[in-house]
């Protein structure tokens, strides 16, 4: 390993004041086979700094922070902590040195309390009682209210993330890594998170912050390091850049705008839901209450709402993962399908993209071609007399790769080895390439970079233009505003009447998402006016 001599990344205030960075990587490289996920990356993190790590899906962001947190061993290069070289044997060593991490996907047990979950994640030998007291104290100090005795299933996504953050803070880290923390949060929850992060920074800690939301990076971060294709391309001050210029650095070119075709015509109803009520399958689920809507060919209906208000249950009822006793509750292509299995619904021309990529949309340890077969076996000519046509499954992989620019280390890797955004592109591609008549998709661009998100949204629009009916569930109101014709809101298992997107102001949607109905408020307004 050669000794690196190089320029240091700038500190937030432009001064190095003679000290060394809190954490430094020198020529950090991670190789998977012939594939360079991280190619000789130099990065400096200073105390009192919020440092953004930006890049397209598959640029190598998660790989880099996993090396820093000791989850994977780098192939070459070194990590310096407070000036000295360290070799991490694993995450517990990283934690004991003062490096904390909050993952995008939470690792919490639903049936345990907050305190029990925190206890499971700590390395110390503290008694449960001391730990609970400290938990309460930390959560109070940072304005992250948590009731240690509540069970996790009762909590919202934002509250669950709070547990992870508090758990990390209880180790008193000098350096905290957050991998796409706001991907799953509502705007309000994100704002609360930013206050906490500012405060951590003021205390002298450093934060490494991965996000695809460039506006929030501009608002929050002091420095931004941009990765492209595993290499570092630049380090800059995001406040002096625009979202567009940051995106250009990430992509190395312009991002296409999403364009709706001018003359999109709606045709016959292709997905109709009639008074669908369904008791929850799980103890902690949401009951669906009298849901009705009609979706025509050529139309995109958006469903907004805070996560956990019945969206998952609605998806299961539409896909056929849960059956309803009354066939007429779900009508696909004019055929009562409430009692039909997911395979039969696929044969009617429906396609589904669930929210959870790993473990639901794909089998993580299986190859992409096998995951193409997972949903394609029903109606895509991949099976002959019970035998798998491997060439056909591989062709689907290749076509999805090409059409949606899925970046991966080899032709047919395991699903779990793809970066989050690239796997999402594969899953969406797999379904769209079947030319479905009805597409039901949840969180289509969750954790997907701006360029790829544009590609996916465009594909949804094109699908509708070609005559399909598209139902999109998303927490991202901007996304719905961009592609949906109408937007309805899900709250406590009820679905509001859809609003035309032009009429669906943020205020109106916000009210609906909070559970108030529009009519009385509007009436009150009218009286007041």
């Amino acid at each position: 390993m050669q000794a690196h001599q190089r320029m240091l990344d700038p500190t937030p205030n432009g001064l190095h004041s003679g000290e060394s960075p809190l954490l430094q990587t020198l020529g950090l490289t991670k190789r998977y086979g012939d594939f360079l996920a991280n190619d000789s990356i130099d990065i400096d993190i200073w105390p009192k700094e919020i440092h953004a790590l930006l890049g397209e899906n598959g640029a190598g962001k998660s790989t880099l922070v996993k090396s820093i947190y000791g989850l994977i061993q780098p192939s070459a290069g070194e990590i310096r902590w407070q000036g000295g070289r360290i070799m991490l044997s694993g995450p517990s060593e990283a934690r004991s040195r003062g490096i904390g991490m909050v993952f995008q996907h939470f690792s919490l047990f639903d049936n345990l309390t907050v305190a029990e979950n925190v206890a499971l994640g700590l390395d110390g030998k503290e008694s449960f009682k001391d730990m609970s007291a400290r938990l309460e104290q930390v959560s109070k100090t940072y304005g992250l209210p948590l009731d240690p005795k509540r069970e996790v299933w009762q909590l919202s996504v934002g509250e669950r993330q709070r547990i992870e953050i508090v758990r990390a803070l209880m180790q008193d880290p000098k350096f905290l890594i957050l991998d796409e923390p706001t991907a799953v949060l509502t705007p309000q929850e994100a704002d609360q998170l930013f206050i906490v992060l500012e405060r951590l920074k003021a205390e002298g800690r450093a934060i490494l912050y991965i996000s695809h939301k460039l506006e929030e990076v501009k608002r929050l971060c002091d420095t931004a390091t941009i990765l492209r294709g595993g290499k570092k391309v630049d380090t800059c001050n995001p406040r002096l850049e625009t979202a567009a210029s940051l995106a250009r650095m990430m992509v190395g070119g312009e991002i296409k705008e999403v364009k709706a075709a001018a003359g999109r015509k709606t045709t016959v109803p292709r997905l109709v839901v009639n008074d669908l009520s369904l008791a929850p399958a799980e103890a902690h689920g949401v009951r669906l209450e009298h849901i009705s809507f009609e979706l025509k060919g050529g139309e995109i209906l958006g469903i907004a709402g805070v996560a956990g208000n019945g969206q998952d249950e609605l998806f299961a009822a539409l896909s056929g993962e849960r059956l309803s006793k009354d066939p007429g509750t779900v009508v696909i292509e004019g055929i009562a399908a409430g009692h039909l299995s997911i395979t039969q619904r696929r044969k009617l021309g429906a396609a589904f993209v669930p929210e959870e990529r790993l473990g639901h949309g794909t089998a993580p340890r299986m190859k992409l071609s096998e995951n193409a077969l997972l949903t394609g076996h029903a109606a895509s000519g991949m099976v002959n007399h019970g035998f798998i046509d491997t060439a056909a499954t591989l062709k689907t992989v290749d076509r999805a790769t090409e059409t949606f620019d899925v970046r991966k280390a080899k032709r047919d890797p395991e699903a779990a080895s793809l970066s989050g955004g690239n796997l999402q592109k594969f899953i969406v591609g797999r379904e769209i390439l079947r030319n479905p008549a009805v597409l039901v998709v949840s969180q289509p661009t969750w954790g997907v970079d701006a360029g790829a998100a544009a590609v996916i949204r465009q594909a949804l629009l094109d699908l509708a233009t070609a005559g399909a009916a598209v139902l999109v569930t998303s927490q991202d109101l901007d996304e719905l505003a961009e592609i949906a014709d109408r937007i309805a809101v899900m709250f406590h298992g009820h679905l509001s009447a859809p609003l035309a997107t032009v009429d669906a102001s943020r205020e109106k949607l916000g009210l609906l998402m909070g559970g108030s109905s529009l009519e009385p408020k509007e009436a009150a307004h009218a009286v007041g006016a």
Partner: protein
Amino acid sequence: MQLVLEKRAERSNTIALVSPLIAIGLTIVTMTILFAILGKNPLLALHAYFIAPLTDSYSLQEIAVKATPLVMIAIGLSLCYLANAWNIGAEGQFLIGAVAGSWIAVKTQGTDAGAWVLPAMFVLAAAAGALYALIPAICKVKFGASEILTSLMLVYVADLFLDYLVRGPWRDPQGFNFPTTAEFDPVATVPLLIEGGRLHLGSIIALLVVAAAAILLGRTIKGFEIRVVGAAPRAARFGGFNANQLIILTFAVSGALAGLAGIIEVAGPVGHLQPGISPGYGFTAIIVAFLGRLNPLGILIAGLFLALTFIGGEQAQIAMKIPLDVTKVFQGILLFYVLACDSLILYRFKLVFPNRQVASGTH
């Protein structure tokens, strides 16, 4: 200082391949110690177990004969285990298959029934094994009863049922009151492959079963279904695969294979129905399935290896007066190590120094 298991970030494929070998190595080390404690010369004992049986044609044939039921049963079990259905009762399905097939042999005894007898015995044995395996499967699907317990309990039912038959209604009148049926007629006997040898047609059937399983798992949608239901249940449901139907199917197939193995054993090497026709094939096959990594080819190799321990155990008993039960101890230790080594695919050992933790906790 403390030893802890830590989850690996990446699944170790190397260990996935070598873990059966590590397990065998550790087992042999443990056995060496055990032989020493028993006061036997470990080197001679290991030689008797693992080398001697490979040196003469009779023992080699005998290994293939013993491996036949092990492989057939383990193939069926591997389908269950891949689909997350835990059939522990193959021993019972083996016995019931043996009984059902023997019924035809007993009833046609001394008549001039033709060549249809043996195929009919095979079919009936397989059907009976499948039906017997369906009891725990249906209890699981309909009532949520643990298939591990129910399938295991049914082993004893089958065992006692067989015992009753050969001591009662089916006992050979000329058998000097031994609990056994009369020797089966030639048409009810599995043909030998080598005149005067031990190798019989069953071994060919076992090879066909291995090939069929390899094709099923590698090339067909059903095989894919089995693998995906076990590996990612939620994704499987999303794919439209029904886990409950698969429990029924895999139990039925593994029961059929165990039942077939049972009648082949009775109508082949044994020649008549009697208690003790199985030295625990149905249980040893569980070890074979896991040692073979639930892979058809792996199971074939593992089946031959465990058959070797049966033959080796017999030779060690004759030559060195090592009790036969030591073979069972050996197999138990082997299963223990196989499962332990499997966890190393996803976890690794790590030494933790608590004093360092405390020191760093105070910053």
